[in-house]
């Protein structure tokens, strides 16, 4: 653990990313305390106020208001919550099914493996965002359905990575020894092999987070994800794209938030991979 931490902190980008992510998480958890107003409250006569301006009734709007008079900072803060929640749910769904299918495929091999992997091939042969749109179109547009769609789309990556790790581990002598001792499949697969595959899974989880957030935001942008008045960043982007010239902060802010959050997850994922991979660790 100590070496891991030492290795991780060596990577400056990842450390900064981790710090920022902790800040985002803090904002997401304490959104109701941090947001100055309710995200859905409409202030009359305070439409498209500029950042750092006071409304006629003396309310301070730090990041201005949107086109129908809602405090923009509050919406961004609550948006953090939505995005984190979305990322988390996507990753949890993918982990559950990814582990189930990936471990079965890798451990049993043969027909089970062939069946699962052909299924994965089918999913991977379709462009991801298109597939997500089709799924949402079938289920009806809502945030939950968006999450389901994005999870399905991201699932193949999880299955493949877990399967590869399990297959590599399966060959090792300690597993064979267990087989000779007559250990059950469950014992071998879950208690022996799985803990040794954690490193790639952790990395994939962190990357899956960013993919999930990005894809759900994309669905929101296309009007197929979160529904009004949920303050979701992708939806906020599409809502304000008409004001690119007249009220640019309405477009830049949610865009920036998505960018920073996704970048942080990616940087952290990279850092984790470097720190967890024994081969890379040995090289320096």
């Amino acid at each position, binding site marked *: 653990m100590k070496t891991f931490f030492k290795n991780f902190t060596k990577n400056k980008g990842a450390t900064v990313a981790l710090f920022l992510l902790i800040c985002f998480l803090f904002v997401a958890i304490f959104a109701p305390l941090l947001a100055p107003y309710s995200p*859905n*409250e*409409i202030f*009359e*006569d305070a*439409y498209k106020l500029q950042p750092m301006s006071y409304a006629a009734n003396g309310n301070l709007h730090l990041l201005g208001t949107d*086109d*129908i*008079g809602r405090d923009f900072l509050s919406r961004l803060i609550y948006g953090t919550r939505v995005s984190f929640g979305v990322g988390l749910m996507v990753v949890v769904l993918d982990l559950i099914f990814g582990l189930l299918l990936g471990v079965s495929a890798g451990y049993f091999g043969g027909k089970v493996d062939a069946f699962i992997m052909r299924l994965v091939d089918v999913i991977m042969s379709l462009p991801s965002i298109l597939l997500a749109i089709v799924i949402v179109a079938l289920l009806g547009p809502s945030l939950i359905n968006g999450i389901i769609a994005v999870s399905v789309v991201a699932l193949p990556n999880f299955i493949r990575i877990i399967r590869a790790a399990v297959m590599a581990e399966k060959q090792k002598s300690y597993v064979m020894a267990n087989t000779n001792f007559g250990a059950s499949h469950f014992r071998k697969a879950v208690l022996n092999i799985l803990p040794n595959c954690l490193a790639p899974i952790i990395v994939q989880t962190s990357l899956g987070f960013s993919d999930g957030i990005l894809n759900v935001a994309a669905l929101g942008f296309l*009007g197929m994800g979160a*529904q*009004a*008045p949920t303050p979701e960043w992708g939806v906020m982007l599409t*809502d304000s*794209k*008409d*004001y*690119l*010239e*007249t009220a640019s902060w309405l477009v830049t802010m949610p865009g920036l938030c998505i960018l920073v959050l996704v970048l942080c997850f990616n940087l952290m994922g990279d850092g984790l991979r470097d720190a967890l991979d024994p081969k890379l660790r040995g090289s320096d």
Partner: protein
Amino acid sequence: MRLITFLISLFMAFNLSAAKKKTFVYCSEASPKIFNPQLGTDGATFNASSRTIYNRLVEFKQGSTKVSPGLATKWTVSKDGKEFTFDLRKGVQFHTTENYTPKRTFNADDVLFSFNRMMDKSHPYHLVNGGTYEYFRSMDMGKVISKVEKLDEYKIKFILTRPEAPFLANLAMDFASILSAEYGDHLAAKKQKEKIDMLPVGTGPFVFKKYVKDTLIRYTAHVGYYEGKAKIDNLIFSITTDKSVRTQKLKAGECHFVNEPSVTDIASIRANKKLKVISQPGLNVGYLAMNTEKKPFDNVLVRQAINHALNREAYMKAIYLGNATVAKNPIPPTMWSYQKATKGYDFDPEKAKKLLKKAGLENGFETTIWTLPVSRPYNPSGKKMGEMMQADLAKVGIKVKLVTFKWTEYLKKASAGEHDMLQLGWTGDNGDPDNFLNTLLGCAAVKAGSNYARWCNKKYQFHVERAKVSTDIGFRSKHYKEAQAIFKQQVPWVTIAHSKVFKAMAKGVTGYTQSPFGSDIFYGVDIQ
């Protein structure tokens, strides 16, 4: 040497003539449903078909609601107001297209063909491409016209079942466009009837060339047009659904004219030296229809409560940016018979709650609002207005989910009455109050699908019908005012706004006249 100079000068001449070809690009806002105005109800369809490809017996004078001669040069009305006889224009040419060359000019058979297609259920073309004729039906024309009679090649008579005041103006409307009977026979022989509405042939100023779905429509000027060839040679509709993209295209010089620029962009377009903006008060109304066939909107108390719950003044500022006034009647104030005495429903959530309690819904209810998927002068941003409505209604305990569809699907589903509450609007198209009060709220329109509140009130219907059979404006006004009072008491809609209509174009565009009906007509338009 001489030969070379000759060749060069020939080449130059050719080059010059090529350069002189004028192409006008119009950035339109939506794809047409079909290229036949008989089957459409929306502006995108009309702009792409009736205002370019077709003509009517009588036409609205450009820029006004007055009726002037079109394919008919003159007409007489019988004393009882039940017979209209038209003298048809001679020598009017139909378009020659890739697949069709007309053998004769326009005559009475074409008029018969066009009207019988809509009226006569046994007409070979009646059921082609859906055969809905929404407009024709919602105006109850099938019952009004008893017969269309051909007196001779160039004389035609309409016999009505009852006197109908707005009849002449109705014939100038889009759905009354004249199709070619000969083309109909030609396609029928080839067993390609459905093509009549896809590869249209008309008499209008522009000839249809090509349509790429959701992308562009291409026309060329009709050289033999009876009023003379259009000043532009090619007309292109570049379909651009996103309004800010439309504005960007205009600024970049990719189009000469945009349909309905976003109100938020008006200031920046005005500031641009290469562009100009014109505006006029629109003959329109934006509204929220409540489906009175569904619970709880069958209850008048609920409808009144919703009228009180919505803060329409705020919408004027946030959505229309001050370019509209709150509507209290279904017809715009510039129209005769407008009921000035109507008292609007003030924004009063407390009163709304009381009304809901009286209706037995003090705990509120859950419902949906369909938000307008396109930008229209009467509602520039359906989604945003929906969000404001959602917030307003939440305050009185009504939980609203916002729903939307693609435009063509939206209209189709709404006509079938699948909605709870629905944002829509109307831009008048013949200048008569009947065009609003009967087309949008009459009983016949419920079945035809243009009465989105699906509201049929006997008393209201009585007044609207009485007003229709007279030509005495005073008498008609009286009945229309009564009808508006009943509307206001029953409120099948929340009337939202009457807005100003803007048109933006490149500085070099001349000869464009803004139509009170909101349509875009490019005959007579030129570019420098």
